């Protein structure tokens, strides 16, 4: 164990009497990348918060390079050499890339003023050392895409030259080539004698990047070892505490005849979306692929009435006017939005309040919320989606990420939608919940619901979709069907290649 840089023994942490960590152990060694896996609610995020000084542990010991280590704030952790890239982005949107990158470590500060030239120069140098092209250090972070912000976030951590770099689900916002970039630099960072703790849900990434893996379940480490000793099946088994055969359920038999539920004609929302005409069939999943930020978000928000658009949306032969989400919900279109914390849930409110938020109209009696009806809605939802909760009046933020996502799904399903728009609904969700969501999608299809399914996880997109439309620059670049729906084809169509859009059958 002479190689140990960071050692954690028996860490316990409870929130309001609920144990998040119950005696967790973790070891990071010099020169290695240590993977930390586990379902949501397993205690990974709490571990990250303890290590980064965001929360104090109730009990346990931590040593950094043999000396006791306990950060009381993120700043203390940083100066001790433990730097964390959190899941939530921490950049300041209205400062420039250079400002953010070198925040607090500005090269020259005179009389409290920062030397802009030196700052930009140093930022440029840092970015080129890290081989980040195409990002001007002078632009405001606000103007960057989510993916680029994540890249800058990672650079910001690396320029602080940590001994231990903690990456909490860093790839969920990154494009495939950026993931390659990240892995390359994490490897060379670790090879230089440092240590990386890499938290991820994605088996494939842990497989590719990590030297050692530790699995958390229920607030403790349930297994750890070098990658060779931890094959994929073993990892899944450890994470779930049971064996699973497959996470993608069998596709149901196709319906007798195709029936179009929702026909969209030339929906546009300048400048990001131009003339897209998807056709949603009853009981089928239409996948939407493509690189991030190609207009997929605009397509979903337009169909949901949350964004100004032109074009025609016909649902069950009825032309819709979608001025606001309430119009869409009334017509039978529901949305699972991209970011459950900022767009989906009211985190300060109770589970019950969040769950019934879209159904208040039908739950009301003389303007008051009917308790029986609401209770019925809550019980049905909890049972149908197996949401794990202690009390429906608990704040929704007390739930694990997967269960929060289920609350959102339950809210949408309570509307009995004919068309369900799922925008990256499995992002940041643990494997167990993912497989439950897939099963739910199949179930909904059997009931005749049409699903429009965007995902940044191409594998999942390929597995779950009956058809895939790949969007590029606001237009459909390719449509894939049947055996053509493969990860390779989707990626190829996403990044370029010839225009292979099949002509749409005339209505």
């Amino acid at each position, binding site marked *: 164990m002479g190689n140990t840089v960071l050692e954690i023994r028996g860490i316990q942490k409870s929130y309001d009497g609920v144990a998040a960590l119950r005696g967790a152990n973790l070891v990071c060694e010099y020169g290695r990348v240590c993977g930390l896996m586990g379902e949501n609610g397993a205690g990974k995020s709490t571990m990250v918060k303890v290590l980064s000084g965001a929360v104090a542990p109730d009990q346990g010991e931590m040593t950094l390079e043999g000396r006791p280590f306990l950060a009381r704030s993120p700043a203390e952790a940083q100066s001790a050499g433990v730097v964390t890239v959190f899941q939530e982005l921490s950049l300041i949107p209205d400062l420039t890339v250079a400002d953010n990158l070198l925040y607090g470590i500005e090269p020259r500060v005179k009389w409290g003023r920062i030397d802009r030239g030196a700052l930009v120069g140093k930022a440029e140098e840092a970015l080129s050392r890290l081989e980040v092209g195409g990002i001007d250090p002078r632009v405001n972070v606000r103007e960057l895409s989510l993916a680029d912000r994540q890249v800058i976030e990672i650079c910001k951590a690396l320029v602080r030259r940590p001994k231990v770099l903690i990456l909490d689900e860093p790839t969920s916002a990154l494009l495939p080539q950026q993931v390659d970039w990240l892995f390359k630099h994490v490897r060379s960072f670790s090879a230089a004698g440092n240590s990386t703790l890499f938290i991820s849900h994605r088996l494939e990434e842990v497989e590719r990047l990590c030297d050692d893996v530790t699995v958390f379940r229920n607030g403790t480490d349930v297994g750890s070892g070098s990658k060779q000793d931890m094959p994929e099946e073993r990892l899944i088994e450890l994470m779930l505490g049971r064996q699973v055969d497959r996470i993608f359920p069998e596709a149901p038999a196709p319906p007798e005849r195709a029936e179009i539920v929702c026909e969209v004609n030339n929906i546009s929302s300048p400048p990001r979306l131009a003339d897209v005409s998807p056709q949603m069939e009853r009981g089928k999943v239409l996948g939407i692929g493509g690189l991030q930020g190609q207009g997929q978000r605009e397509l979903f928000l337009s169909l949901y009435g949350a964004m100004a658009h032109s074009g025609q949306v016909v649902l069950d032969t009825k032309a819709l006017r979608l001025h606001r*989400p309430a119009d869409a919900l009334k017509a039978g279109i529901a949305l699972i939005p991209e970011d459950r914390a900022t767009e989906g849930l009211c985190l300060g409110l109770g589970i019950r309040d969040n769950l019934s938020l879209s159904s208040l109209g039908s739950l009301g009696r003389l303007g008051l919320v009917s308790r029986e009806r609401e209770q019925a809605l809550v019980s049905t939802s909890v049972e149908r989606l197996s949401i794990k909760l202690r009390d429906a009046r608990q704040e929704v933020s007390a739930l694990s990420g997967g269960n929060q996502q289920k609350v959102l799904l339950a809210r949408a399903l309570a509307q009995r939608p004919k068309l369900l728009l799922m925008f990256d609904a499995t992002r940041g969700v643990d494997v167990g919940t993912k497989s439950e969501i897939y099963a739910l999608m199949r179930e909904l299809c059997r009931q005749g619901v049409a699903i429009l399914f965007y995902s940044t996880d191409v594998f999942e997109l390929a597995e779950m979709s009956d058809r895939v439309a790949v969007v590029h620059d606001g237009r459909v670049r390719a449509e894939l069907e049947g055996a053509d729906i493969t990860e390779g084809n989707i990626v190829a169509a996403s990044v370029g290649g010839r225009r292979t859009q099949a002509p749409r059958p005339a209505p």
Partner: protein
Amino acid sequence: MSDLSGGFRRNSAIVLAFVVAGVLFLFGSIYAVDFASVAHIRTILITASFTGFVGVGQTLCMLTGGIDLSIPSVLAGAALVTANLANGVTSRLTWVIPLVLVAGILVGLLNGLGVAYAGVPPIIMTLGMSGAIQGLLLIYTNGGFASSPPESIVNFVTGDTVGIPNVVLVWAVISAVTIIGLSWAVFGRKLYAVGTNPVAAFLAGINVRRILLVPYAVSGLTAALAGVLLLGFYGQAFTDMGNDFLFSSAIAVAVGGASILGGRGHYVGTIAGAIVLTLITADLDVLSLGTAAVDIAYGIILIAAVYFGGRKLGRRRVAS
């Protein structure tokens, strides 16, 4: 009580505010013989009720992360217009009072339109409105003073029904309506959702702008009502009669545990806040400290209440 939704449940700040009220009351009772007398308790409740009236609107505004700074002007305006139009004639009140209350709602709606539809920050919108009304009142009253309201309004405000002051009864009714509205009504659910996360509320199908109108309209109504009743209480109206109520309504809401960022708090807390403020004034009076001390105390309490509220918020953020 455990079924109250939104901001009330788990809000230990509200419980704390009632405890503080109890301590302040005990303190006064120890120092002054008459403090706990029925007459004095009546006075305390009557005084608190005026802050309680305007506190309804202010609570709703602050639950959406806004604030209503036009309360003093609307209050004074309502009193002045009532006194002038009624001109001492009781029978006129049957149309003057409804007219004034509707005018209060309209002013509030205007505030709400500015905030919800034009996107003007609440501080600016309501401050601008307040200034404009103050100017109009000076022109309208030609000096900003009106006296001799109809006898009946004075009698009502200073009178009792079954031994309870009428003003306190009105406060009880309004409190009940507000608490039901916030805790059990569909409207309350939507208001908390909008206050907590307007984007999520919008995507959940709530008409966020329409919901945002309501707090300001209600605030116009409750400020106008407070003005009419205060006219009876003072027996006169003047342009700066509402000035104390901006400060006191905001502090009452903050002391009651609401977050100025919206989404957290309840009118139950504001009731406690209004009583706490009145008791502080009474206690300082017992100690023979004047209005200067009251203002100092109010200022410190406002900052302290928001500071401790904010600290709790900060901890929550890290812990979540």
